[in-house]
């Protein structure tokens, strides 16, 4: 119990810190790297939840593929010219901080005031989070959604290919 709580707390704090770093550092590369770290921490938290498969997929797909794609594009764009993209818009800064504090306080306070949710999880089923359970859920009940998602990925590939194709007239109007 103690260990799981400690793990949770440590990685929760780490993920929050890295999220804040993502949002606030000036260089986009550093931002991406801290984002990757945040996703790792989230994956660990998924593990503490008992959602093993989701955690693994998070590491493989999210942190491994999507963020790499982000890094490629950052480097693609940064290579093109040397503008500094890094100023933070000053006007909404303070308002945003205030809003953030308000929202967080509100949500937490509401959670703290409500009964019935703070407490331990009910006992998990043996098969919760295993690949078997998730697979049977996907391929039996939600097969249609699965197929639709495949089609979605196909469309995404096609779109990406179309959008990134170089025009014959050249670039940069």
């Amino acid at each position, binding site marked *: 119990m103690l260990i799981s709580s400690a793990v949770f707390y440590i990685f929760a704090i780490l993920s*929050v810190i890295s999220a804040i770093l993502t949002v606030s550092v000036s260089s986009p590369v550093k931002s991406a790297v801290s984002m990757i770290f*945040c996703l790792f921490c989230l994956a660990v938290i998924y593990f503490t939840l008992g959602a093993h498969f989701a955690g693994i997929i998070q590491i493989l797909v999210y942190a491994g593929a999507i963020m790499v794609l982000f890094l490629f594009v950052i480097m693609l*764009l940064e290579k093109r010219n040397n503008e500094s993209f890094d100023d933070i818009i000053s006007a909404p800064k303070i308002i*945003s901080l205030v809003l953030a504090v308000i929202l967080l306080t509100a949500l937490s306070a509401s959670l703290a005031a409500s009964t019935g949710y703070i*407490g331990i999880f009910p006992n998990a089923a043996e098969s919760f989070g295993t690949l078997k359970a998730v697979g049977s*859920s996907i391929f039996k009940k939600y097969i249609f959604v699965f197929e639709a*998602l495949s089609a979605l990925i196909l469309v995404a590939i096609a779109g990406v290919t179309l959008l990134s194709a170089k025009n014959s007239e050249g670039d940069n109007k």
Partner: protein
Amino acid sequence: MIIGLAHYLVLAAALFIIGLIGLTIRKNIIVLFMCVELMLNSANLTILAYARQFNDSDFHAAALFVMVIAAAEAALGLALVVAMFRYRGTADSTKLTLLKG
């Protein structure tokens, strides 16, 4: 302290808010996209927490679907950013104001 649903929800809320704030603050489009991903991740965390609460593997599947969608959307979005960078020469969100007026 025993970790319960509330803790996960608070964490998700915090990540969501951080992502939202980052979305309003940053000028670089790619960082904006990363903030969106952060928000998606927080939603994912919420779904998984509730999945554990209700002990239902279907929610687990839903979390995976969210991940797939996030991947597709990230790919398309980045392709758009590249295209826009080609045609406008800038990836600064304050300069892309075609919606003005």
